[in-house]
């Protein structure tokens, strides 16, 4: 049996050092050398990658749906903006759940202002205030001191479940962005291992870049899982088994599909909510002072203010037509409470009146014409104009 006997001196009192198999044993100097090489690789790769990877963004660019969880790309997107850009942040209402990039709020605001590209769609599909807080805190620094329009979607306070207050475990989007420990989110039951891993990734750019690579090149999977992707058939196919993973790296950030059957006026989803057969809905509005999402939204605004951002909050407009009558009073109290808080904290805000019923695709998302009308109303609003002109 070939065994390497340890080279270290054997102490008389203690047992001999056991053999060390396989030679992957570095001395202190060698560790220093390895650490140096690794530090250079880990620190420079994400930066160099940005120089090498083609990232095409136009006037109406929005982060593609498939890359919604690519926060490194999101940060990179913000880094590429001019200081004069106005950034629209928020959930799928800002992003444009039912519409094409040319049917979003940012597109119509640009059209109204006559400056293409002035308003930038920085919404993320599937976001909510608790996640928005994480997004802004960890990845939103590039827009420091800039103009930021934040959309406040009251849908997230429409029930304890939407407010993530229920004790039963819920799976939701962007769980990696929500506070992992404090404040506690009752329905978020991730184990300690996952929570700590999330914290590490937030502070470790290389890890964020690795996630970007997975999102951009490997169908949101890590490379081992990608090679074993079963193709979704009845019998296991593993279409990627023999593919070269390196060949997947095309050094181009994927863009939105040229034809998106899920979105835009030709999509079957793009129609007024009332034609989908949905009746009115009874919402169990959560009180503002007990709402996790509202607290998170308040923290977002305070964070942006502390970063020197010029903030404007657009509250709603929520689809009041979908509401049961007895719900409306509570909703308006809630909306007034939001406005009162914003006013008391000297935050510019606009609370546009509800759009016509046929311009909503659901409780909070307008269709293309709805966004157009909303942009027009915003543009006509004195508070918005004052804020927009105050550069």
């Amino acid at each position, binding site marked *: 049996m070939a065994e390497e006997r340890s080279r270290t001196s054997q102490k008389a009192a203690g047992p001999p050092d056991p053999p060390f*198999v396989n030679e992957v044993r570095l001395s202190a100097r060698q560790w220093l050398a390895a650490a140096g090489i690794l530090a250079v690789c880990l620190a420079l790769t994400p930066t160099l990658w940005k120089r090498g990877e083609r990232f095409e963004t136009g006037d109406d660019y929005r982060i593609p749906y498939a890359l919604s969880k690519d926060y490194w790309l999101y940060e990179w997107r913000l880094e590429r903006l001019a200081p004069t850009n106005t950034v629209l942040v928020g959930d799928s209402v800002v992003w444009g759940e039912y519409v094409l990039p040319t049917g979003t709020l940012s597109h119509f605001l640009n059209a109204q202002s006559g400056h293409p590209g002035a308003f930038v769609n920085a919404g993320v599909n599937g976001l909510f205030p608790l996640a928005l807080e994480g997004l802004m805190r960890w990845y939103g620094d590039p827009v420091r001191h800039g103009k930021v329009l934040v959309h406040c979607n009251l849908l997230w306070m429409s029930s304890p479940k939407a407010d993530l207050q229920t004790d039963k475990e819920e799976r939701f989007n962007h769980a990696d962005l929500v506070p992992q420990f404090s404040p506690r989110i009752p329905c978020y039951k991730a184990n300690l291992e996952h929570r700590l891993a999330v914290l590490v990734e937030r502070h470790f750019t290389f890890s964020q870049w690795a996630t970007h690579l997975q999102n951009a090149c490997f169908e949101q999977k890590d490379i*081992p899982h990608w090679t074993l992707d079963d193709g979704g058939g009845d019998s296991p196919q593993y279409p990627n088994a023999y593919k070269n993973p390196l060949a997947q790296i095309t050094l181009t950030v994927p863009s939105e599909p040229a034809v998106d059957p899920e979105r835009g006026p030709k999509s079957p989803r793009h129609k007024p909510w009332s034609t989908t057969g949905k009746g009115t809905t009874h919402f169990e509005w959560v009180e503002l002072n007990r709402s996790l999402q509202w607290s998170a939204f308040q923290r977002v605004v305070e964070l942006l203010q502390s970063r020197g951002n010029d903030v404007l909050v657009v509250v709603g407009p929520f689809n009041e037509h979908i509401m049961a009558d007895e719900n409306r009073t509570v909703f308006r109290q809630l909306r007034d409470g939001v406005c009162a808080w914003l006013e008391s904290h000297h935050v510019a805000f606009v609370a546009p009146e509800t759009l016509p019923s046929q311009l909503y695709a659901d409780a909070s998302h307008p269709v293309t014409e709805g966004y157009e009308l909303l942009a027009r109303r915003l543009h006509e609003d004195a508070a918005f104009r004052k804020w927009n002109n105050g550069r």
Partner: protein
Amino acid sequence: MLFHTWPFFCFLLLVLPVYFALRKTRLWLPWLTLASYFFYGWWNPYYLFLVAYSTLLDFCLVALMDHCPREGRAVNVLARITRLQFDERVLKFAFLGAAAGTAGILLAAFLGPKTLRPTLAALALLVCLMALGALFSSRRIWLLISLVNNLALLLFFKYARFVAENVNELLNWCHVAFRLPDPSTLMPFGFEYLLPVGISFFTFQSLSYTIDFYLGKVERERNFLRFATFVCFFPQLMAGPIERARHLLPQFHRFPEIRLQNFTDGVSLFLVGLFKKLALANYLSYYVERVYENPKAYGAPALFLGTVAFGWQIFFDFSGYTDMARGVAKVMGFNLILNFNNPYLSTGLGEFWTRWHIGLSSWFRDYVYIPLGGNRHGTARMYFNLFVTFFISGIWHGANWTFVIWGTLHALGVMITRELERSDFYRTRVPRLAKQLAVFVFVTFTWIFFRAGSLSDAWLIVQRIFSAAWHDPRMPALMLGLVALVWLYQFLYESRLRPLLASAPVRIGVVVFMVLYLCLCASGGGAFIYFQF
């Protein structure tokens, strides 16, 4: 708490600095004990009681054994009972305490809650045996108590359900109405019946101390904390390597010398283990799980490759754990035994077992094979002893007939290779590579029984490997490439090119590659396979 998870890194970040800060005080040992108990309690705090109980009992048993004469002497039992005349006061108190304890426990069992009765009855039996040990001043009885206690714990938590199910099946077949109760009904206070992680490891480690003391191979440990740390030392508590008292216990007698080399060696070991687990074992497990969960969906090549992949998966998983355990211990200045030594390069099955899970195989050699007679009583007896040892080794791995078959196959394999090695032709003419390949193929074949969920599954896989259609196995090229790289590395390590691997640029290059690969491709991962044993 798994070694490759962030909670463990946080745990280490707390434990190590305090441990080193306490080096000039006597508190470093209690700190290690506390950290080890916390580490174990993280999994299930209730079962901390088991470790503490097993530790305390074995500590006391050896202390009592120490008060008994080495040579058996005639004892006047009647005088001892009637006049309480004992050679040692300790034994007298032990007798009185155990007798009173037995009565008290029986009373508690009679008057107490029903769910406690089975536990208290077992305890009463044990304490009664202790009274006998004191009465007869017999080292053998104290040893017997340790054996009964440790093996009873192991049997109850690991095998009781398997035994009950099989006996009930037999009773049913014989049309007997009696049924053994499910072991979960015997748990006190309705606690959940779970297999305590690492029970096979810490009971064996504790047992080795009592047996070695009985045989006069180790001194009695008088410091309870030192002994408790030996039993539950957190790096090797869950899945070994199974340490011997004479190797590990003396290392707790004083704070280890702080050397930079301990730190660098420890980190090197840990990194290799981490890579084995996260980059290799976990990756292989994805393919293996799919194939073994639905063997009917796969052709012969996929089943064959899935089995080969499992052979490597279990090696990377278990040796990765061991490397990490040794690395953490080394950083603290402790040396744990080598548990794996490139086993897949063995040229014989006997050699394989000196390279695979060395802690366990040497335990079975020293405490089962040699006491049975080893090779001292002729070939037939030697083979019988080998068979018994491997049979028990198979059962040790789990309560399932698949493990029995696995152990039996290895027993047969060892016998056959021993016979082959007696012939000049085999020793001198058969190329080394062919022997290595034969051992690998045989070991891989036996892994089918180790991995399959049931005997029927195992048979199905064996049948299909030889009879199913030849579909493209679609095993990822990256997976094959990684395993080939590791095999090549091991092969070069045991060849004349070994100095090349020992050169600084290669070592640094390998470390950089491993870290970058882990950062880029590691995909989380589950528990270690051997935690279930």
